[in-house]
């Protein structure tokens, strides 16, 4: 009898978790669809959008740039060290370029921006929710999704590919600097090998991924902001959840997109 009660409790808990999961997916879908439909229909709020462009794009540049520079440099050292085991040191420029454009550029850029942006969006919208500012928006005939989500979503979708492209270039430059200064490559040879083996599809694939990451980052932040509960502690929890969820979804979607684009 005790075992039966215990089993029923477990099933109840699983049921609650499943319900919570389905409700969350439903809410996330609703936010995504409403935001998308409102992004395509007037009125458009230029000022919040421009503010977000500066915040997401321009303000993320230093951290994305530094990350890409050191990653490119470290990648060059690692590939040189690994490649020298089978006399393939000359692959350093091409592998750095392909690695940065296909994988490290978009993924690291996505993860860095997720840490910065998802948390900031969740904290801002979450604190607006607990201080009734979202209700105030409704009472002023302004849709919270149109005013808060759409500018963030649009700016992330625009900025992430640009940041990724910059990250690719800086990462390749980081490899180039190390290649010339520590690995006995000449500028001409390193550049020639980079250009020779790098294809446009490598760059495009990274940029396509970054668009998906932009959507994940902004929607994750907005979703956890809108579902914040219980004052400052609730906002703190939402912030953490937003970053963790965005990071995990970025890594999972990166695998799926890679498999979709490159698996033959």
């Amino acid at each position, binding site marked *: 009898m005790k075992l039966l009660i215990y089993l029923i409790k477990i099933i109840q808990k699983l049921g609650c978790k499943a319900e919570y999961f389905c409700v969350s997916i439903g809410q996330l879908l609703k936010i995504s669809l409403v935001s998308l439909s409102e992004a395509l229909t007037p*009125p458009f709020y230029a000022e919040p959008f421009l503010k977000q462009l500066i915040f997401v794009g321009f303000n993320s540049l230093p951290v994305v740039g530094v990350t890409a520079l050191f990653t490119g440099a470290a990648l060059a050292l690692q590939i040189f060290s690994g490649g020298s085991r089978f006399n393939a040191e000359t692959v350093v420029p091409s592998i750095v370029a392909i690695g940065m454009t296909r994988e490290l550029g978009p993924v690291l850029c996505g993860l860095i921006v997720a840490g910065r942006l998802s948390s900031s969006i969740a904290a801002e919208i979450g*604190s*607006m929710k607990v*201080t009734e*500012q979202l209700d105030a928006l*409704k*009472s*002023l*005939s302004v849709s919270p999704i149109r005013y808060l989500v759409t500018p963030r979503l649009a700016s992330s979708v625009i900025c992430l590919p640009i940041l990724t492209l910059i990250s690719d270039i800086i990462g390749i430059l980081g490899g180039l600097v190390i290649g010339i200064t520590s690995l006995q490559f000449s500028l001409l040879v390193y550049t020639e090998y980079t250009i020779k083996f790098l294809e446009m599809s490598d760059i495009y694939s990274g940029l396509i991924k970054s668009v998906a990451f932009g959507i994940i980052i902004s929607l994750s932040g907005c979703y956890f902001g809108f579902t914040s509960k219980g004052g400052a502690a609730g906002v703190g929890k939402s912030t953490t959840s937003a970053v963790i969820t965005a990071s995990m979804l970025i890594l999972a979607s990166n695998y799926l997109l890679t498999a979709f684009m490159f698996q033959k």
Partner: protein
Amino acid sequence: MSGNGKGKLSIDRIKLSLDNQLILNDISFDLNTNDNTDSITIIGRSGAGKSALLKCILGIYYPFSGSIKFNNQPILKRNKEIFFNKLGMVFQNSALFDSLSVWENVGFKYLYGPNKMPKKNIKKLAEEKLERVGLSIRSANQFPIELSGGMQKRAAIARAIMTEPKILFFDEPTAGLDPITARKINYLIKDLISDSKASALTITHDINTVNTIADRVFLMNEGKFVWIGCRKNIKTSSNEYIKDFLNTE
């Protein structure tokens, strides 16, 4: 009250449930919004359902039964805009937008709402409203965080009266204020109601607010109205809830 429902906000037998708990149980009343202005004050303990009622009227919560009508038309998604254009709301914690300056907060409805105006005109109008509620023009360019609690409340009132609404909602207008500032806010609300010929629905547990601005008083307990009467009758009422409320106050 007009018999055809014109010029009034009618709440008819609404019931609201949140997290499987009955919050509002059979709530009905009318607020006149025609030339004979009306000021209703809803009092009651914390958790009695007062703010939930306001949120139902604003369309933030959806009652599972009953209706809310404005000028005899149910307030639905498609005509919510018409109703929202006629109301001004002051939230409990002022709910000013932190990232915007005070004048942008006051002029928000014209900056981002359906009825847009040139920015220069909005700022001028916002400054006029700020002066009307006793704030200096200097405060217009400040951010809400730079203002005191009383000043924030005044800015929130200025935002509510910006579009010269026919109905004003106040949720705990004196909460968190010292007695002197609270008294000033009460008199400011009283003046605004009579000057703008707007009707008001005020949620409060401050008896001074009731004495200053109310025409009619509704006492709410556990989601129900347990006493309805005129302000002048409140002190002489033998209702145990009223006595209890006044004694606690």
